[in-house]
């Protein structure tokens, strides 16, 4: 109990760190994932190919390996001096984008193909068809898997703590190294994660019911 009260600033920093890292990489992964899904259903073969390779690569690589690459390989190639936080964001975002892409793509596949054809036959471009006809109808099926993906992302962000990004899991390490009772630290850290993941699933459930009403 005392661990929390005595080290509130550390816990708070860790909580905010996890929250920000999760939100930022979620936004990055969403934008990238939707774009990749668009690639994967586009009429242009090189784009489809690119999307497939991307998903295969990032979905099948262990996240820790991506972190290692981000930390030790990427700086050797592009020495742009990314901060640990940005590197963590990149690793999490790239990894998660492949899952988002597949969720969005399977959502797209639930929209009857004939509607996209009808849109094209009206002279709408591929982009217009995707934005106005396909994606709005795919959203409803995409929301539940997306919720799981975002919860997984929250927990995956703990890996960043091991790479010296200030976040919840790192706080646990810091405090247990200082000799505090590990059970209490774990409990508080776990609760903090729970707060974030509950908020995410609540948010997505809200979205889901909103969309149902809109029909």
């Amino acid at each position, binding site marked *: 109990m005392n661990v929390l009260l005595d080290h509130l600033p550390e816990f708070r920093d860790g909580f905010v760190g996890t929250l920000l890292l999760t939100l930022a990489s979620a936004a990055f992964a969403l934008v990238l994932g939707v774009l990749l899904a668009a690639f994967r259903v586009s009429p242009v073969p090189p784009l489809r190919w690119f999307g497939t390779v991307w998903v295969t690569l990032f979905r099948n690589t262990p996240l820790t390996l991506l972190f290692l690459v981000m930390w030790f390989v990427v700086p050797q190639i592009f020495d742009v001096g990314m901060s640990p936080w940005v590197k963590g964001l990149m690793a999490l975002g790239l990894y998660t984008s492949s899952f988002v892409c597949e969720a969005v793509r399977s959502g797209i596949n639930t929209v009857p193909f004939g509607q996209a054809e009808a849109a094209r*036959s*009206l*002279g*709408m471009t591929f982009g217009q068809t995707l934005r106005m006809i396909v994606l709005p109808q795919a959203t409803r099926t995409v929301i539940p898997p997306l919720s799981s993906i975002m919860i997984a992302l929250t927990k995956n962000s703990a890996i960043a703590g091991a790479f010296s990004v200030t976040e919840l899991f790192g706080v646990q390490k810091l405090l247990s190294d200082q000799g505090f009772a590990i059970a209490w630290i774990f409990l508080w850290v776990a609760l903090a994660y729970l707060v974030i993941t509950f908020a995410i699933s609540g948010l997505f459930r809200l979205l889901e019911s909103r969309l149902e009403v809109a029909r």
Partner: protein
Amino acid sequence: MTEVSVTKDEVPPTGEPLVVLDGVNKHFGALHVLQDINLTIGQGEVVVVIGPSGSGKSTLCRAINRLETIDSGSIALDGKPLPQEGKELARLRADVGMVFQSFNLFAHKTVLENVTLGQIKVRKKDKKAADQYARKLLDRVGVGNQADKYPAQLSGGQQQRVAIARALAMDPKVMLFDEPTSALDPEMINEVLEVMQQLARDGMTMVVVTHEMGFARSAANRVVFMSDGQIVEEQSPEQFFTNPRSDRARDFLSKILHH
């Protein structure tokens, strides 16, 4: 490939040529679905395409607005060859209306929005003008009072009439109908055919894939009979139904007449 002598041009196309297919070939893998298709559709003409399942009728329609690419030959609309993918092609598609067997209305949009979307996004009309025109067209096809409903709330016949209005809203030069009544319950077929008949009377250029002989007889200038990817016969409806020249047409007609 078996040789067939094509019986054609009993009725030459009336009016200026609007759609011209010249030596069009198309394969799906090893399957030669369109075999050296030559067809000219004149301004204001109504051409009914008829033939057994799998003969390539849908593919022909879809090739005309380039939903399907062709391997060789050329298709021209109003004197201009079909462009490749891109903005040009989108513009061409807007000039070719298409009505599908399965309606394909946008399920998340109201009937009115279905008919205004293309006008606003493709023809760049303002919303008010688009609404006005859409309501006029919906009235014309007899579903004006359904404007604010969603497609799923309409009967099949009503949905297909909305789909016709949606295509008409682009002011197309030609309308393609791919078995527009095949997915409908029998009692709804006529309401759709009547709308099409009215369109034909108003001078719309139409290509209609259908087995509705009543429609072909009363509205078509020409019947094109396809079999195994080839145009086997082109005749006036009267000639075709009473006195088909080819064995394949006779065979086909005897099947659809006696069941």
